[in-house]
């Protein structure tokens, strides 16, 4: 039985909400119940953005409960840390290695947390932390805006949904002109996640062949 609570976090302008819309579309197409809720804060741009997606046979509350996040997809490092205390024991975190300093940092009043601090927070309850160079790769591909779809590509490897469903959902949500580059970003995200997992398993000697298109996670 699929039951999955996904939290997607980032800053305004990174396409967090669109990413969660696509994930929700995919779950619905896969015949599941889904609820999602966005928190945008007051400002239009630059503030924290978080969206919660709950997927299952039947979902009641649109909110993910305390310590009940199975998967955290974070588009920005500081924002990933902000949700560390909501992670379930043994959750998975997919983190984009990218930082956007908030005003207090760019004004020199506070320091941006270091990578070790962030990973300490995220791993506190035993989460698997998978860091990918999403922003870097999106820029290499010529368009930083495709980050959200690249991140979805990575996420897709940890969900039980068929890649066809993802491709269909992405194509439906995006204007025709930018579908092609986004589908490439999606594939790039999938590849990135796989290679990081391979690296991680080589280091730890773990077998990780289960995480693919039809892993029955959760």
């Amino acid at each position: 039985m699929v039951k999955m609570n996904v939290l997607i976090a980032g800053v305004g302008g990174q396409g967090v909400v669109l990413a969660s819309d696509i994930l929700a579309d995919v779950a619905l197409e896969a015949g599941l119940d889904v609820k999602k809720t966005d928190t945008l804060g007051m400002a239009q741009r630059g503030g924290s953005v978080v969206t919660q997606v709950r997927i299952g046979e039947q979902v009641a509350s649109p909110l993910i409960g305390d310590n009940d996040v199975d998967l955290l997809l974070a588009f920005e490092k500081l924002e990933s840390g902000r949700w560390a205390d909501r992670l379930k024991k043994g959750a998975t975190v997919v983190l984009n290695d990218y930082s956007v300093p908030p005003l207090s940092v760019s004004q020199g009043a506070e320091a941006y947390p270091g990578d070790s601090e962030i990973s300490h927070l995220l791993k506190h309850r035993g989460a698997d932390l998978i860091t990918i160079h999403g922003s870097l790769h999106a820029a290499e591909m010529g368009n930083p805006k495709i980050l959200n779809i690249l991140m979805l590509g990575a996420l897709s490897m940890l969900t039980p949904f068929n890649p066809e469903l993802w491709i269909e959902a992405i194509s439906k949500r995006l204007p025709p002109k930018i579908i092609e580059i986004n589908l490439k970003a999606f594939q790039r995200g999938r590849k990135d996640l796989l290679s990081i997992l391979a690296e991680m398993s080589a280091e730890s000697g773990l077998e990780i062949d289960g995480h693919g298109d039809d892993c029955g996670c959760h």
Partner: protein
Amino acid sequence: MKKLLSGNEAIALGAYQAGLKVAAAYPGTPSTEILENLAAYKDLHAEWSTNEKVAMEVGMGASYAGVRALVSMKHVGLNVAADAFMAASMTGVVGGLVVVSADDPGMHSSQNEQDNRYFAKFAKVPLLEPSDSQEAYDFMALAFEMSEHFDTPVLLRMTTRLSHSKTVVQIHREDRQITGPGGFNRNPGKFIMLPVNARQRHPLVETRLAKLAVFAESLSINRIAEGTKQLGIITSGVSFQYAMETAPGASILKLGLTYPLPEKMVREFAAGVEKLVVVEELEPFLEEQILAMGINVKGKSLIPRVGELNQDIVRDAFESAGWIETIEKPVQDGLIDEVKTLPKRPPLLCPGCPHTGIFSVLHSLGLRRKTTIGAEAGLVITGDIGCYTLAAYPPLEAMDTCACMGAGIGQALGMEKAGINDRVVAIIGDSTFLHSGITGLINAVYNGSAMTLLILDNRTTAMTGHQQNPGTGFTAQGAPAPSVNFANLAKSCGASDVQEVDAFDIKALRSVLKSALDSRSLNVIVVRGSCVAITPGGGEALTIDTERCTQCGTCLSLGCTAIRKGAEGELTIDNQLCRGGACRLCQQLCSHQAIEQIIKKVV
């Protein structure tokens, strides 16, 4: 067909399919998307009204003329519309009239968390509370039918969580109910609320309520899910979901119509369970009514009255009462406290915001004091609601009050009349001025104020997501419209000293403001500059020449997020965020000529 819809999208679709002809609203989170979605349909009239009261009156007129009308607003909007709303209850309707109030438990984007369910009781009109998007969609047709059948406006109450969550909706029909064009039948006894007529109407309103109470008993949206006898839960709205999540085995009385209550149903339900509890967000609206029936019920003694609920809060309440088994909680590992120490990312003015310049000038005049009691006269800035309220945060800190829309102007006059020896500046946005600032200005002129009024015309209603307003030249449905000239409007209100100034010209802002503050009579300054979100950038950005830069930090005083101070104190500009030549505020502030314009790198 199944679709994922937000509560607001579901309302729009449901209303459209139910034959809606006229929709009127004023933007306000979390209600805004209802009208935005309706505006996309070409076979109805959807408008941004100047304020909620006007929207309500437009809805009443459409209803009197026999067509179905929808009026939507955020919870505090109903305060503004209350006079019309109460009157609509008295006259009743012809075409169905549905009023949507989107409440904001938890105050995600509001100044209070009032529970508007009391407005239904106050106005003696029926109240519907959907629990998800499916119900929001389904309840619309029902709401219009009830409105017409019982000759009453219907209040439908949403909350942020419902309005902004997407849930699966089974859509029953593709088509739209066909309705004829409007037509008006004169009926003075119904439509002219002179006392003599109103006295006839009031008893009818009471009878209507009694009939609705009977109707409530057999209405299918009030339903019982039988579970264990040990625990009975009465609930409505999104709280139903939290109750289901927490105690799926309990007996649940789920109410879709929460005013008037189906008393018989409540009594029978109460009699069939051992313990009875109401799970509701904010006020004990249901609890009080059930207690008044003489039924022993628990509610707010367990479930908080403040803030938004969730399943964990409901679970804690039930666990503490010993009604459900305690589940294992994660260890108190102090992680929450660690997370709290991370730098915050509060909402801010965008880089290139036309509001930044004027606030920076106000801040830099050297007149801002903690108090002027017993000290030198300073500068008090009464404010209002909009993006510009964000200038209250550091480093600008150039706003002293913000209460409700339009309030700043009246407050400024009140302070003057109280005899403070400071200069008082009132600041208001374009949309807010049209919403409820005009009467304040007329009043200030009339009553001999010497304030300076700043109207910040950024050519949009920015805070709620850039809606059109009567100043922008377009309607909600995208048609060109005449646009208000704010300077002329202020003059017509009786202000003789009115000036316009460019929002991005620091020198001009400073000199206009200085002479305004020296003046001993009322003056109005219209600060004009378009919102960065509606005017796409010109492809250029500014950059800092590290040779010339002395790292004095003056540019940082703008609070612009594109300007960054590095670990070594070096200053840089993020060229992706910078608005470039259309803004240039930092360039004007820099006395070392260290800031230059460049062509934006396309990454």
